């Protein structure tokens, strides 16, 4: 039997500091990951890779404490390595090796590996044939790295930018695999600088900026935590806004911004939208150009860091 992750979850990082010469890459970072999918989100240079690589045992913290599946990744590396799967941001394969050859090799380093042929099929690596790694496309190289991370049937998988450079179809296919991993009880910690990836995939999102976690929570909670959402519509000028407000929940605001252009702010959910349209129907108003601006992680990020997150 393997040790169950304790109350600290699969990953517990406290006060992590990592410096490269005079540059502080990670500056007192706290991060906890529970079973499921955790996304570490941040712009390039925020300290995502340094944090992940410290958890993988590649780097020794300058300060702070790191526990992965309850183990110290540096001093208890031998016990930890068989239990984790690692996908590096790039490389990791002999330039002259074929995809299936490398994957079979990784499988041989584990006691109970996945069926390599099925995994090759699942990730569409069969078409690589006898092509050596250096001649594979970027997408094929990414998928091979992902396959290498999961082939040993780990409890926890670290994926560093798993969809960087992938086309939309390959991205979705990678997302599907990550969801299958979660469904089968594998925990996933991934880094990304794509908002939609974090929103779509993660149970829990940690936003990193300048070497610190500035917010952590489920995508829903993070999006609710910031500014309110907005619903806009057009109608004839001079509608009775006070009457509309009476129909809406308490914490909602409504205003006619310019003649005939209305804005409702608050918790914009299907119920609110239905209330607004039925009020319009009762008053013989045809609401035009209805638009809903929901608060996204992108907005949250902008508010927290004052910066745009650019892919």
């Amino acid at each position, binding site marked *: 039997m*393997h040790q169950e992750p304790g109350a600290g979850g699969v990953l517990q990082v406290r006060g992590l500091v990592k410096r490269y010469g005079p540059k502080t890459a990670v500056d007192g970072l706290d991060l906890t990951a529970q079973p499921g999918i955790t996304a570490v989100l941040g712009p390039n240079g925020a300290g995502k890779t340094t944090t992940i690589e410290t958890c*993988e*045992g*590649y780097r020794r913290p300058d300060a702070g404490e790191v526990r992965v599946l309850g183990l110290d990744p540096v001093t208890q590396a*031998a016990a930890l*390595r*068989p*239990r*984790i799967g*690692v996908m*590096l941001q*790039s*490389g*990791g*394969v*002999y*330039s*002259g*090796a074929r995809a299936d*050859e490398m994957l079979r*090799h*990784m499988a*041989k*380093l*584990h*006691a*109970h590996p*996945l*069926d390599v042929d*099925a*995994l090759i*099929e*699942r990730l569409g690596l069969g078409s690589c044939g006898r092509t050596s790694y250096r001649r594979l496309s970027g997408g094929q190289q990414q998928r091979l790295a992902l396959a*290498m991370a*999961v082939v*040993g*049937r*780990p*409890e926890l998988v670290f994926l560093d930018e798993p969809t960087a450079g992938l086309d939309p179809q390959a991205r979705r296919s990678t997302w599907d695999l990550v969801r*299958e*991993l979660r*469904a*089968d*009880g*594998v925990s996933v910690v991934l880094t990304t600088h794509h908002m939609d990836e974090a929103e779509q995939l993660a149970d829990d999102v940690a936003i990193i900026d300048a070497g610190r976690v500035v917010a952590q929570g489920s995508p829903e909670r993070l999006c609710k935590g910031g500014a309110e959402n907005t619903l806009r519509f057009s109608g004839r000028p001079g509608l009775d806004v006070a009457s509309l407000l009476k129909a809406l929940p308490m914490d909602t605001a409504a205003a006619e911004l310019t003649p005939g252009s209305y804005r409702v702010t608050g918790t914009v959910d299907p119920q609110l939208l239905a209330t607004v349209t039925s009020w319009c129907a009762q008053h013989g108003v045809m609401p035009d150009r209805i638009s809903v601006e929901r608060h996204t992680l992108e907005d949250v990020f902008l508010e927290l860091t004052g910066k745009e997150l650019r892919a």
Partner: protein
Amino acid sequence: MSADTNPATASGTYTPKPGAAPVGRMIAAQAALETRMLLRNGEQLLLTVVIPSLLLVLFSTVSIVDFGATGEGKAVDFLTPGVLALAVMSTAFTGQAIATGFERRYGVLKRLAASPLPRWALMAAKTLAVLVTEVLQIVLLTAIAFALGWSPQGNPLAVLLLLVLGTAAFSGLGLLMAGTLKAEATLAAANLVFLLLLVGGGVVVPLDKFPDAAQSVLGLLPISALSDGLRDVLQHGASMPWGAAGILVVWAVLGLAAAARFFRWE
């Protein structure tokens, strides 16, 4: 494609069942992979197989260097020990340095460091891959040498000991280079060293063709110690050339210690 038709997407496929393979199996798999990578690489084969074979055939059959002046017998008896030494150098030093340098550059060493394979097991596998390649080289080169009329003397165990010591010395130096220089610098330097030692290390040109002052320095090189040591046994029937063995031990200790101290994995 539905989850039902694809076995890999069926629920439970990825259910964790972690564990390292037995370490012996990991080393065997790693050594087999590294040997395949080496034998598949055209440039490596040029260094490890084509050049030693060509030198042996060419210099044995065409009188380019005057071996008679040194009072030696047949050219092939002089050349074979030197070419065997060159073969060891080409695999343990040049080939290993270049391959390991690029493995480091392309993150292979980094990725393996996160796998269940311990570092010592990786080094054991690399050594094993070098030894397997050397056995193939020696089989090929001795077959060619016999076809050219080679008549070896001496104690096979002394030959084996010299080959092992030479492998250790060259491995240490090769890994030191691969672990400290950039991959491109390693590629250039390892090839340059190969060429210089081929000419100046008593492989095809007898050391006594060089000026006295140069001879005493060149004699201390690992390639000279290995080729002269092998020559003492195989050509002259010496029981055990302790001087040559001692020089190789010193190189092996220095090289491996420096590699262990300065090797950077990333």
